[in-house]
């Protein structure tokens, strides 16, 4: 059992397939700083990763992704911890609750303030700064953004265009997980990749996160569906019986 899960593409080390109702995710369980940790590689279906986190006992999910800088203040190697987002993905599943009426999951704050604060504890380096706020534009994966899209998203106030953060984060909120995103800037919008997210940089992030995260949750993320539960629309272990 790990109370903290990290959703990220290609973690270093060996992962084992983990079956979910939405296809396999890949999981690697570790202990870091005395804390059990599950590193989850998302499956093809965005619902698989957050579901695996919940099934492994996690209450918090940090999503590590890479992105292109829309804001010209950002440079490759910087981290951005967004406090808001615009979802421009399309066509895929956006919810665990198809064909039902559960009311609405609030998106303000968009991400867990406590988890964001713990991620922000990562020490900065001159060439790797940490920005503790900003707007993430979830780009339609996997192609790079067009120049027109980059221009438009910049106009919307977007700071980074990123892949993998949404709809995973919104799905995790439906599972009442705390969720926050750490976006690693790998290039300027429209440019070729200039940096790669390397294992030591991820280890640095994880070590700081584990050290700074309070043991108990002090946020409201665990109550995201409280209204639906109160009116009896949701059973206790509803997420266990989800199916495609």
């Amino acid at each position, binding site marked *: 059992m790990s109370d903290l899960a990290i959703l990220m593409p290609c973690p270093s080390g060996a992962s084992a397939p983990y079956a979910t109702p939405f296809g396999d995710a890949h999981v690697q369980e570790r202990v870091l700083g005395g804390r059990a940790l599950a590193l989850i590689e998302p499956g093809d279906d965005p619902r698989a990763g957050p579901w695996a986190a919940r099934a492994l006992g996690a209450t918090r999910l940090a999503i590590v992704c890479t992105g292109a800088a829309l804001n010209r203040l950002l440079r490759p190697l910087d981290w951005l911890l967004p406090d808001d987002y615009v979802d421009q993905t399309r066509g895929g599943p956006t919810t665990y609750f198809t064909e*039902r009426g559960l009311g*609405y999951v609030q998106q303000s704050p968009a991400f867990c303030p406590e988890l964001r604060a713990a991620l922000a504890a990562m020490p900065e380096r001159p060439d790797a700064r940490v920005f503790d706020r900003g707007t993430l534009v979830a780009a339609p994966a996997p192609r790079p953004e067009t120049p027109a899209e980059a221009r438009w998203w910049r106009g919307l106030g977007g700071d980074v265009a990123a892949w993998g953060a949404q709809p995973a984060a919104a799905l995790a909120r439906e599972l009442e997980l705390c969720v926050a995103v750490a976006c690693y800037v790998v290039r300027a919008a429209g440019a070729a990749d200039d940096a790669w997210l390397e294992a030591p940089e991820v280890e640095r992030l994880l070590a700081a996160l584990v050290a700074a995260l309070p043991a108990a949750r002090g946020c409201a993320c665990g109550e995201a569906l409280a209204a639906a539960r109160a009116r009896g629309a949701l059973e206790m272990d509803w997420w266990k019986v989800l199916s495609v």
Partner: protein
Amino acid sequence: MRVCIFGGTAAYHLRLEDFARAGEPFAVDTPDGRAHFTGLTTAGGAQVLFNSRHGQGALERSAAFVNHRANVWAARHLGAEVILSWNGCGALDALLSVGDLLVPHDVLDQTRARRYSYAPSTPNGAAQARWRRRADALPGTPPPVFWEPARQALLAAARAQGHNVHAWGVYACTEGPRLESRAEIAMLAGAGAAVVGMTLSPEVWLAAELGLRYASLCAVTNWATGLAEQHSNARRFGPEVGAACLRVALAAAEALAT
């Protein structure tokens, strides 16, 4: 003109016999599933069809999962020529207030995972030609989005019933079922949206495709994400919202029927 009312917010809480003479509820099976209706006879004698989009008794399905294909197909099958609907929505335009009504004149479709046409595949030349033939086969050409006489009927009825009602506004339709983020609301406001909801698309497109005329009544239930701080935290989702909208829609249906 035969009118069908699609009830939105709080329609599932209403006792229809409190508003009109109500027949027995009945169901219509369509190629896309079952649709449920009740026949209503207004005080003025107009025959109106009624469908509660989100179910009966409780919110059975959120806006993202309303079976618009079955509902619109069945309305056409039952002889409806006009659809009047109501929708709860969040306010973006600073001049609105919670509790206001708005009759939108345009739609900004930002949904992402819905089926927008009765045509079998994504838009292509053949599907468009079929679409046009079907539309032209019906008397009159369907309007781009909303039919002006029905919009005017809703406006006149809402004014007569003492509502603060707005005659124009762009309705932005999001995918849901989650609410929007603050940045998404800022984007929609910048694009010109006055209100945001999750219901009108693809209902308006499907109705036009089957040659049905359409107008909608938006009830402002709350401020959109991030705007409550500068305006108000007021929220109006209760049965009184559905009751007010149904009264307006019935009066408009009566005016269109005569």
